């Protein structure tokens, strides 16, 4: 045998390790960035970090190529060619900021609402929202309106929490896990870690998803449901639980509004509202005394059944009865839903029985005493080890709010919210249901150079909280109007369309961050591009000024007039704040930071840095001292440490107080960021074992949450099986109250605003000839890519550079296609030409593809002949941002009628074989390259790290 060469087994990884926070998706994992000679050598997960516990996904592990992408913007630019041409001139930051200040200052002085500021995949909404408030425009939101507002609103109105950022399954103790409509996103690593735990313990995973990939592929049971029918499936599960009396009645009485009495007074203004006592608290019927009592009293034995006559003669019935009647009706019988859902009645029945078996016969008892909100001591924590998680597949339908509510009601009926083995809140959740936060931005509150009175986004309790002046919407996206009354995240997807139509009014400046609206973040891409380039009769753009900040040359950049180049995630400061979108786990209240671990080699600035600078230049009070000087001369890190939302409460919760000894509330600590850096760029406060469960009603938790500033008072969160604010809108539609919907909207509001969740068909398909568009079309995000950012990543695009349309084998046989054949996919909006791949693991009435793989020529530093541009395609071109014209000629947004959530999974299509095609259609003109240098034709990353001796 030859002599083995000597190799160096002890080569140090790098000369420095910097711990920061990933930004390859919204998961926000802790990462260790190993650096050698100032370059990134290797990125791994931070073992101590609450989110990812050391692991790192396929995206995060390709971070080097994201950071060194040739598509990075290099310097501020102003547009010199027509919009879309990609012709820019490089300018200095001073010129860029002066221009932005001039444009923004003029609007702020004249009519602040003529600024529309929308921030896409923003992880700093507590800052961007503050900036918008200070500016005084009503027009602000991030991308929640096309992402997950149905999940957030459905959850928050029901139980003061929600899936993903606000809660997780109890990965350690759950025995039965039901996963609805989740491919990769929301969340990435926590779900992967959790599924690994569950499989290792032999817990059962049931996935409800039209497509069997990823998590759904490793599930023990796959329910290949028809898109948009999850509400029928869940309704049938609830039907079975009621039918078989598998309901946790104790839990309902203790934690929910099941015994609350609902006024039955058809045709009257109080019909369907809660009967209330003199103190305005809802009332129950107390079986012990035979009299009515406050629902908040603990000394009662509330009746769940029985109609009662109130003192004034009105009749009232408990929520429980109304709900049971709803779900015991024949329309939710398993047999009745089988054909629409595509799920066999026996399978539904078995899953319901399994849920009940695990919840009630396999309960978990922890020897952990705790004290409830009323001060009663319990010596054990009893758990129902059934948990659920849901996201996109429920969220992106126009029936998503009600379906999401139904899933939560299923959890609640089983007694599995925040108990051992169930769903667990993550601090600062639970909030009250709904949170005590009303939307701000009524037209009468908008005044030149004056801040708004509060945050833009909130939770209306009825028509009185809509942002309407007569019939005139306050917001450009028509959020909080009769079009979408409970649009708690705004409707970013309608901004460009409405602005181009000057409906409800003209805007002067469109200011966007990190939102690829000219491509995969919009419904109807061609229409959006038309809107971005539309001109008035005088030849001026209808949207006169567009400012855009992005780190990369995305498809949106060519349509902006002023480009503010952002940094990569390794070059920036950020705080992932408890005021915003927390990274907490069920047992830890946590927040984190990003900090520059490498210095930019370009003339770029973090967007938040720029925003704080603009805030000072525009003399906004929160960003300026009384003498007019900038309040945060040290930029974003200065703000992170010294900004106080209320006295003692700032963006970061850890190491507050002058000496760093305070948590949650405390004076700013000048050494706070140092402490974060010492701790691996995050802060985590561990809950005590007695606070760990039943947080909605746990005195120790609630008191602590008040101390932390998470809650105003320690009253419990009571689960709203019956959602009274929804009924308040319905009453208006029935003609009650002074604020009335327009006639055109009346029936739509009346139908969909049901205070008890129900299933209705997704809106678009009810307005189409279903025979003409027999198939559902949906997308999934690949695990190794997120949004558009993956396409420029030299490693990730080697895994997926072009997407296929996946169709069921039977459909392939029917239309006579085999793998890689081309087809036309047609919707009422348009058509797309693409290649197919046949598979078994897809609902036969559904076709699907990977999201955002298709790219426009010119963007992202890719060559014009790249597969992304020539074979890759988007379904977005097929999705209309508006519903077809209904009665009365009004075209509603293609959104959930309650929350305004973009209904991009409602898409219906027809398919036919295409002949002789070799490239996708529509094929858009190249965008120009924004002056970026050509991308390299070869990479040998890491050659520089090679040392002799190997």
């Amino acid at each position: 045998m030859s002599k083995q060469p000597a190799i160096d087994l002890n080569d140090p990884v790098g000369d420095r390790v910097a711990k920061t926070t990933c930004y390859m998706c919204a998961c926000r994992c802790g990462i260790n960035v190993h650096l050698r000679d100032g370059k990134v050598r290797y990125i791994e997960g931070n073992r101590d970090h609450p989110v990812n516990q050391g692991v790192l996904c396929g995206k995060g592990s390709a971070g080097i190529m994201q950071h060194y992408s040739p598509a990075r913007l290099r310097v501020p630019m102003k547009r010199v060619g027509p919009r879309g041409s990609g012709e820019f001139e490089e300018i200095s930051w001073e010129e860029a900021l002066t221009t932005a200040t001039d444009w923004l200052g003029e609007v702020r002085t004249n009519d602040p609402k003529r600024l529309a500021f929308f921030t896409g995949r923003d992880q700093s909404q507590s800052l961007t929202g503050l900036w918008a408030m200070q500016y005084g425009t009503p027009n602000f939101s991030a991308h929640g309106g096309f992402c997950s507002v149905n999940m957030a609103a459905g959850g928050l109105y029901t139980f003061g929490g929600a899936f993903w950022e606000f809660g997780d399954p109890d990965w350690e103790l759950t025995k039965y896990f039901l996963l609805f409509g989740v491919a990769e996103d929301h969340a990435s690593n926590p779900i992967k870690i959790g599924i690994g735990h569950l499989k290792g313990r032999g817990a059962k995973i049931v996935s409800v998803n039209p497509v069997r990939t990823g998590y759904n592929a490793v599930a023990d049971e796959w329910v290949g449901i028809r898109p948009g029918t999850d509400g029928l499936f869940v309704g049938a599960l609830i039907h079975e639980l009621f039918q078989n009396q598998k309901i946790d009645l104790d839990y309902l009485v203790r934690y929910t509004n099941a015994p609350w009495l609902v006024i039955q007074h058809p045709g009257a203004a109080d019909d369907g509202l809660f009967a209330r006592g003199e103190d305005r608290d809802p009332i129950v019927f107390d079986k012990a005394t035979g009299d009515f009592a406050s629902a908040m009293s603990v000394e009662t034995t509330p009746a769940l059944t029985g109609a009662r006559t109130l003192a004034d003669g009105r009749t009232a019935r408990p929520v429980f009865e109304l709900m049971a009647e709803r779900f015991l009706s024949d329309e939710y019988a398993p047999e009745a839903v089988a054909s629409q859902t595509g799920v066999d009645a026996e399978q539904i029945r078995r899953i319901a029985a399994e849920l009940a078996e695990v919840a009630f016969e396999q309960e978990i008892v922890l020897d952990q005493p705790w004290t409830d909100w009323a001060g009663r001591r319990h010596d054990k924590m009893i758990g129902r080890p059934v948990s659920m998680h849901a996201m996109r597949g429920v969220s992106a339908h126009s029936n998503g709010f009600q379906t999401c509510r139904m899933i939560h009601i299923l959890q609640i009926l089983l007694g599995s919210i925040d108990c051992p083995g169930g769903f667990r809140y993550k601090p600062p959740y639970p909030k009250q249901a709904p949170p005590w936060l009303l939307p701000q931005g009524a037209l009468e509150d908008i005044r030149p150079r004056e801040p708004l009175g509060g945050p833009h986004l909130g939770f209306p309790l009825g028509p009185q909280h809509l942002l309407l002046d007569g019939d005139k919407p306050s917001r450009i996206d028509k959020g909080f109007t009769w079009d979408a009354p409970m649009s708690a995240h705004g409707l970013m997807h309608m901004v460009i369309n409405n602005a181009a139509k000057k409906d409800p009014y003209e805007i002067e400046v469109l200011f966007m961050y990190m939102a690829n609206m000219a491509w995969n973040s919009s419904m109807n891409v061609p229409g959006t591009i038309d809107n971005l380039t539309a001109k008035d009769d005088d030849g001026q753009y209808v949207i006169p000024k567009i400012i855009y900040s992005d780190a990369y040359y995305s498809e949106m950049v060519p349509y902006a007039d002023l480009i503010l180049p952002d940094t990569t995630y390794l070059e920036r400061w950020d705080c992932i704040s408890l005021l915003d979108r927390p990274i907490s786990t069920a047992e830890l209240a946590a927040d984190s930071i990003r900090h520059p671990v490498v210095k930019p080699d370009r003339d770029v600035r973090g967007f938040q840095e720029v925003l704080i600078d603009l805030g000072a230049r525009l003399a906004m009070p929160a960003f300026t001292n009384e003498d007019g000087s900038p309040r945060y001369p040290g930029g974003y890190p200065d703000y992170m440490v010294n900004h106080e939302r209320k006295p003692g409460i700032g963006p970061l919760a850890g190491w507050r107080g002058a000496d760093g000894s305070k948590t949650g509330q405390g004076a700013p600590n000048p050494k706070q960021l140092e402490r974060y850096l010492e701790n691996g760029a995050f802060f985590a406060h561990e809950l005590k074992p007695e606070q760990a469960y039943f947080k909605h009603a746990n005195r120790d938790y609630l008191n602590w949450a008040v101390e932390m500033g998470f809650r105003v008072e320690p009253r419990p969160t009571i689960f709203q099986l019956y959602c009274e604010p929804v009924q308040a809108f319905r009453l208006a539609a029935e003609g009650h109250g002074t604020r009335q919907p327009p006639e055109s909207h009346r029936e739509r509001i009346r139908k969909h605003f049901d205070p008890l969740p129900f299933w209705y068909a997704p809106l678009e398909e009810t307005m189409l000839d279903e025979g003409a568009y027999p198939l559902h079309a949906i997308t999934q995000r690949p695990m190794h890519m997120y949004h558009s950012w993956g396409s420029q990543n030299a490693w990730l695009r080697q895994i997926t550079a072009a997407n296929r349309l996946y169709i069921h084998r039977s459909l392939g046989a029917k239309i006579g296609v085999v793998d890689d054949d081309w087809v036309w996919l047609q919707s009422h909006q348009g058509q797309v030409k693409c290649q197919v791949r046949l598979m078994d693991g897809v609902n036969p009435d559904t076709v699907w593809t990977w999201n955002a793989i298709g790219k426009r020529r010119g963007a992202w530093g890719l060559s014009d002949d790249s597969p992304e541009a020539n074979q890759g395609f988007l379904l977005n071109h097929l999705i209309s941002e508006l519903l077809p014209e209904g009665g009365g000629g009004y075209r509603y947004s293609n959104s959930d009628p309650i929350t305004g959530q973009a209904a991009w999974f409602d898409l219906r299509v027809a398919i036919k074989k295409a002949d002789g095609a070799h490239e996708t259609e529509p094929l858009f003109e190249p965008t120009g390259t924004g002056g970026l240098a050509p991308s390299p034709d070869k990479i040998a990353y890491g050659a520089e790290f090679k040392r002799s001796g190997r």
Partner: protein
Amino acid sequence: MTSLPENTGKKLGLVIDLDICVGCHACATSCKEWNTGGYSAPLSDHDPYGADPSGAWLNRIHSYEVGEGPGSKTVHFPRSCLHCEEPDCVTVCPTGASYKRAEDGIVLVNPDTCIGCKLCSWACPYGAREYDFDDGVMKKCTLCVDRIYNETIPEEDRVPACVRACPTGARAFGDLGDPSSAVSQSVAARGGFNLLEEFGYKPVNKYLPPRTGASDLDPAIVTQPERIPKPDGSAVERLFAWADQALSR
């Protein structure tokens, strides 16, 4: 021809759990990221932003369906060098650049003596070797030999990058020559198998099969309690009677 060690002291390798792998590619990209700056540096990429991007990877994931109809299953299958006990890829090497380490069984390529003749990649039935066209030498999984013994990194991190990254815990690293090791035990418990056993190369890496069938609960629970016959409303009445028990807050 290159000869093999008569006996390796250890048989270091990976155990990959196909029951848990969700096909996320974390093992592939973390491998690429580590190794492009490690022992095999660089793992070159050709036409990285163009029409036909390709590069050297030491670990790739294949997702595909097995079977058709109701019994079909989606499988995610990570593929890398199996560090065979009797690897033809080593014995065919004309220069001795490919070799199997005596101390731990890791199959390595010495880039200083590899002439890029590709005989080894022809010999490997697993497609585990990748020729780096730009670097002109053969690249392959090193089992992160520059991590697993590396005293400059914390002991808990002395595992291959793929194992370090894997979010679901589908990958484990250890000595498959030691029957008492955790990896050997999991192979024994779960019926771990060799890839292409019949070829006789005796792969060290093992795969754990997907567990068969859903862990359905006792079918007895599906049996329904006696149902009240129609007419409608009776189920409601029965439920209400049941719910009309004394429940205190």
